[in-house]
């Protein structure tokens, strides 16, 4: 059992008021809040050992380098990567996807096929479209059904010996669907295609084991899992990372530079040009340590209860429809009320101190599929409570009465 009272005490922001009401923060799929253990790590860095890393001869630089590399190892262990140099620090999931998409430019030719799921975030659609424009490769889409689940029979038919790459999110940000990535990976590998999984929405809820999944690339953002913004990681299998050319040129990523020829550094530095987000990387490590101390099994169990309760209570509101009713979901509920614009509901909820997201959630193809302008999305974290669900449900009822 989670000690929610103690956990909530770790998050200073949860004590604040918004519009004179206690904050009810239900926008965790956009960004999660930061516990004081992580804030302390950030303060500690700037107060005690702020320095540039890897090349300094002085003590502070050495300390910062050690802490940064320790964070890399924490991330490696968390995702069970075989080697620490398979973990590339990035600015976030979008950066990780773009790094891989850019790297494949020289590996693809016209007529090659790329398979992507219908429920991707724009950041896992647009870089591949740009890659297709550069190479002449063709984008194929795995469709979804009304419940918001991928139609896997169609996936089988889309795969062929022309398929070079498959991209899919582990969890849909707009619907909360947990996708069958193990099956997607296994089937792609049979045809020799590489698979990138966008783990941004899964990482706060599910501890992915990249070796067990046999995934080629897995990428996440720290700020969705109690870490700071502007930092994330890309896991890539060593053989793939060695095959891809560097993404950006600069300091840190070189072995030797002359005007005639530059040789590149070994992994992971080959992909880490420039001074990285040192503090962010260290704080990412602290965030993983914090969540692992609570335990992902306990988090998953608690959030599942919260999801079931919120689903059951929200469905009691007249005219409310939930989008995304997959059998396997994380704690995300996307909904609309008949006759009401989602933006209006979000505005009234904000006045009541309740933070939700409204709009298309950077997943316009999903909204087009349902023929709606957007949804209201409430996304729960392990620090949310059933009492907060009750406040949400009351707020939604009040908004409905005002708006209809």
């Amino acid at each position, binding site marked *: 059992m989670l000690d929610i009272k103690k956990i909530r005490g770790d998050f200073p922001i949860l004590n604040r008021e918004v*519009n004179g009401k206690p904050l009810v923060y239900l926008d965790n799929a956009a960004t999660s809040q930061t516990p004081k253990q992580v804030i302390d790590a950030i303060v500690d860095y700037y107060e005690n050992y702020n320095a540039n890393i890897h090349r300094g001869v002085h003590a502070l630089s050495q300390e910062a380098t050690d802490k940064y590399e320790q964070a890399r190892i924490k991330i490696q262990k968390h995702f069970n990567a075989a080697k620490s140099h398979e973990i590339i620090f990035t600015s976030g999931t979008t950066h990780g996807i773009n790094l891989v998409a850019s790297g494949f430019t020289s590996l693809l030719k016209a007529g090659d096929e790329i398979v992507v799921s219908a429920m991707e975030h724009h950041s896992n659609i647009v870089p591949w479209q740009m890659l297709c424009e550069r190479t002449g490769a063709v984008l194929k889409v795995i469709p979804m059904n009304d419940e918001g689940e991928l139609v896997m029979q169609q996936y089988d038919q889309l795969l062929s010996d022309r398929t070079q790459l498959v991209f899919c999110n582990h969890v849909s940000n707009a619907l909360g669907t947990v996708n069958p990535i193990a099956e997607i990976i296994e089937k792609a590998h049979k045809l020799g295609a590489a698979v990138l999984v966008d783990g941004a929405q899964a990482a706060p809820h599910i501890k992915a084991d990249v070796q067990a999944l046999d995934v080629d690339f897995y990428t996440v953002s720290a700020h969705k899992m109690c870490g700071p913004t502007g930092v994330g990681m890309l896991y890539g299998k060593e053989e793939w990372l060695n095959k891809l050319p560097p993404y950006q040129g600069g300091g840190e990523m070189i072995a030797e530079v002359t005007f005639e020829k530059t040789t590149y550094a070994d992994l992971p530095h080959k992909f880490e040009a420039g001074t990285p987000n040192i503090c962010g990387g260290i704080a990412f490590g602290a965030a993983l340590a914090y969540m692992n101390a609570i335990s992902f099994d306990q988090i998953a169990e608690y959030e599942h209860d919260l999801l079931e309760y919120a689903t059951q209570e929200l469905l009691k509101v007249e005219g409310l429809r939930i989008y995304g009713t997959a059998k396997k979901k994380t704690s995300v509920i996307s909904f609309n009320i008949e006759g*009401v*614009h989602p*933006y*209006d509901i*979000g*505005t*009234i909820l*904000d*006045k009541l101190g309740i933070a939700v997201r*409204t*709009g298309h959630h950077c997943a316009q193809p999903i909204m087009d599929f349902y023929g709606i*302008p*957007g949804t209201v999305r409430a996304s729960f974290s392990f620090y949310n409570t059933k009492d907060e669900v009750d406040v949400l449900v009351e707020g939604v009822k009040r908004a409905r009465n*005002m*708006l209809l």
Partner: protein
Amino acid sequence: MGIKEIQEEIVDEFSMFDDWMQRYEYMIELGKSLPLIDEKYKTDDNIIKGCQSKVWVHAELDGDRLVFTADSDAIITKGIIAILIRAFSNQKPQDIIDADTDFIDEIGLKEHLSPTRANGLVSMIKQLKLYAVAYQTQLN
């Protein structure tokens, strides 16, 4: 009534409410009572960009006065448009061009809107003024 007088009237009305929930309720009522735009004017050309919800505005001259009609798919947005239309519609184009928009700050509307909605509000005012400029040129 001139634009200035109408704006003062709106500021007075908003000052009567105790909290922002009541002001929102009032805006929603205004939104519901906004005279509907003719469906034929709800075209892509008449959509104002910069709003998360869709907003259509149509302008036409009635003698020397410019008349605005508008609609939105979101009711609070409709309420905001209703306030703007009350302040600016059925006025001479030159008066619309010259009018200041301080009343928006006086009723505290902008600071109580989300950033996307506040941007939308700015776009709406800009669009109304652009229409006025276009029709003033026509009148000249």
